[in-house]
């Protein structure tokens, strides 16, 4: 019986899910950095 499909679907989906989480972590970091920049700009204007 060929079980390759079930193994690939399991391991592949796990790898994709982890890759998506790492990408969202990077996006969250970039967003936080942008907010800090905005605060700095506001402070500079005051």
């Amino acid at each position, binding site marked *: *019986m060929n*079980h*390759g499909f*079930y*193994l690939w*679907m*399991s*391991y592949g*989906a*796990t790898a994709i*899910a*982890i890759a998506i*989480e*790492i990408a*969202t*972590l990077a996006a*969250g*970091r970039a*967003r*936080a*950095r942008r*907010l*800090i920049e905005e*605060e*700095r700009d506001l*402070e500079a204007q005051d």
Partner: protein
Amino acid sequence: MNWSYFSSPSTFYRLAGWLSPWFFALAAILTAVGLYYGFVVAPTDAQQGEVYRVIFIHVPAAWMSMFIYFVMAAYSAASLTFNTRLGAMMARALAPTGALFTFVALWTGAFWGRPTWGTYWAWDARMTSELVLLFLYFGFIALANAFEDPRRGDRAAALLALIGLVNLPIIYFSVHWWNTLHQGSTVKLTGTSMHVAMLTGMLLMAFAFWMYSIGAALTRVRSIILERERRARWARSL
């Protein structure tokens, strides 16, 4: 050691930044060794053939889904009891990773169930309670972000996390309390019937997922701290 020193967001931000790469590196090493054990060292199962190798992600992911929820609820309880900012931030940081591992446990379970049970899904007590766990994670994330004031979101989500704790023993004992399609625990505190190479691979992957979860939570909490503390002088001076 003065532990309250680390409960300051500014101190913890730096500590988390220093620690997270180490946890990710450990996770990568453990994953490589765990997969080597799982695919090279561990023998083929006499009954299930090669498909049993889903176990090396399915079981560790299921363990992490419950463990992360427990830790998230503990941080939530601490934030409600002691009104700690960092506890609530840690609970928020853990939720997406917990949801991820719950999804992985359900997904890999479906792709293990099809060739062994003949179905991707059954409304069996173990699977249904694990699905409820996924909804609890989604509810926590949605509730935490539903308020203009993040502290109100923290409190509402913390309450949900504590109420949802009741689901953990249901997941764990479901295979004993009800007649389920899902098998009982193979690994117990009293021992296991698994081949030593299979067990080693599974435990290595469990540690890998554990290290990854800590790394991901620490990375995420840094972003949350920065967002919340962006008006503080220390954050602006970064």
